């Protein structure tokens, strides 16, 4: 029996963030080419690479292709990304030849706000010209969301994040639902899962409205509904996410411990 399949002892504590990261990592198919944002997406992508998906090709928008960092990068262009990459290319090439070229299997995005069609806001909270909070902005997200064959989104669940109406549409998911993407002639199929600290939402095959399909262990459906700023669709059968395995948890914790140590000073 390999480490992979050792179930977690029932009383082992793990955090909701760990569950979210692990659930996201599991969605990565081995061998896929991943376009990875900093933060939660980067942690999940690297966890996948260090567990079940060792041949995953990690691509950061800084131009690093096939990178294999030993610690999580604090920034998207850390030296370790360049030093462990199969190839490093200029940023215009990255966006033109690699992302827009349609060769990325999976885009991995975070968000400040998301709506029921998995459109996301990373620009402002409040009015654009008089924002209550000025967020960092689009970065690579609009074209990652448009051009990757498939997109995963990870963010923490709260009514402030899961909103009826975005303050700003930075990047489109399924637009206004249905065939909204097709009408815009967007190349990729858009978000296929939203992984939160409470569960997993999946777009309905027809309406493309996000639907709760899985809750993490110990989370109930009502809790997720309450954390969602619109009347949340719930699948007829809501499964429970498998809890972290011992292997998943220890690899993730080792990774984060190495990372914390490295980032404490120069890294």
């Amino acid at each position: 029996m390999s480490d992979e399949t050792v179930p977690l002892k029932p009383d082992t504590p793990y955090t909701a963030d760990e569950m979210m990261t692990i659930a996201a990592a599991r969605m990565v198919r081995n061998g896929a080419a991943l376009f990875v944002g900093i933060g939660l997406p980067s942690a999940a992508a690297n966890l996948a690479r260090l567990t079940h998906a060792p041949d995953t090709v990690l691509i950061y928008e800084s131009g690093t292709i096939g990178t294999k960092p030993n610690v999580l990068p604090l920034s998207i262009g850390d030296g370790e990304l360049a030093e462990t990459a199969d190839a490093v290319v200029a940023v215009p090439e990255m966006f033109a030849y690699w992302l827009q070229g349609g060769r990325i299997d999976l885009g991995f995005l975070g968000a400040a706000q998301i709506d029921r069609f998995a459109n996301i806001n990373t620009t402002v909270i409040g009015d654009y010209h008089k924002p209550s909070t000025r967020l960092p902005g689009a970065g690579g997200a609009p074209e990652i969301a448009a051009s990757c064959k498939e997109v995963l989104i990870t963010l923490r669940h709260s009514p402030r994040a899961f909103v009826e109406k975005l303050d700003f549409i930075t990047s489109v998911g399924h637009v206004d639902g249905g065939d909204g993407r097709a009408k815009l002639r967007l190349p990729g199929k858009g978000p296929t899962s939203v992984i939160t600290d409470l569960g997993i939402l999946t777009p309905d095959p027809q309406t493309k409205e996000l639907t709760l399909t899985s809750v993490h262990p110990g989370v109930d459906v009502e809790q997720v509904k309450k954390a969602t700023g619109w009347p949340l669709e719930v699948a007829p059968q809501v499964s429970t996410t498998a809890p972290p395995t011992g292997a998943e948890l220890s690899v993730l914790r080792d990774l984060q411990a190495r990372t914390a140590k490295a980032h404490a000073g120069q890294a």
Partner: protein
Amino acid sequence: MAQILPLKEAIADAVRDGDTVALEGFTHLIPFAAGHEIIRQRRRNLTLVRMTPDVIYDQLIGAGCASKLVFSWGGNPGVGSLHRLRDAVEKGWPGPLALEEHAHAGMATAYAAGASGLPFGLLRGYLGSDLPKFNPTIKFIECPFTGERLAALPAIRPDVSVIHAQKADRKGNVMLWGVTGVQKEAVLAARRAVVTVEEIVDRLEAPRHAPNVVILPNWVVRSVAEVKGGAFPSYALGYYPRNNAFYKQWDHVARDRDTFNAWIDRHVRGTADFAEFRRSLEGTPLNV
């Protein structure tokens, strides 16, 4: 043909009040020393351009050098907000800051168009995003072959582009490697290009296994200044690592206007050059 100049002269020669200035870098090789020199020389009313404005742009904005920012992602990477940028946008302090906001793909394309002598750049982008509603420079055109809608952006042509590189030779030919972002495009798109380097050497040679080596011949560069450590607290691959602690500590300095002002006065305006700036940090939380 590039002149080798002290940084102070290179900036005085190239950067004027009201200029459009791009200090480019994608996490790596951020031209901090050159940015400080612009603050010291009290340039005003600059339009600052950069895909990823970070701490040096927070400093330039907080110090009152900028009236406009053209950008696609503005944050302290891995840490959080740029408080001076936010204060300028949200509260107009120390002055109003107009924004021209893009996505990365759009800005990269617009820089490449600038480097290519094209009036505009073309991409599959911005479809469905609200960005074009707030940035009138983003237009859409129809493909003459397929009828698809494609985004069109005017070329970025900075008056001055400033980058930091690992090396130059004595003739001013420049070499950089690792993550090189849009630096080549920024230099080629600019009317005037200033390059700071870690060292000036007799002969340009890349280290073994250096990835993505880029060479800029001296006839596309206006001036080269040797500034050892000039990308601190960012990193120079092969020279020194990123000082992540500085980026984290910056969050505390930048949160408060007075703290920020005191820091800039003491460490940037109050020092003669980058070497003195580095020495002034000794014993402070932002030290190496």
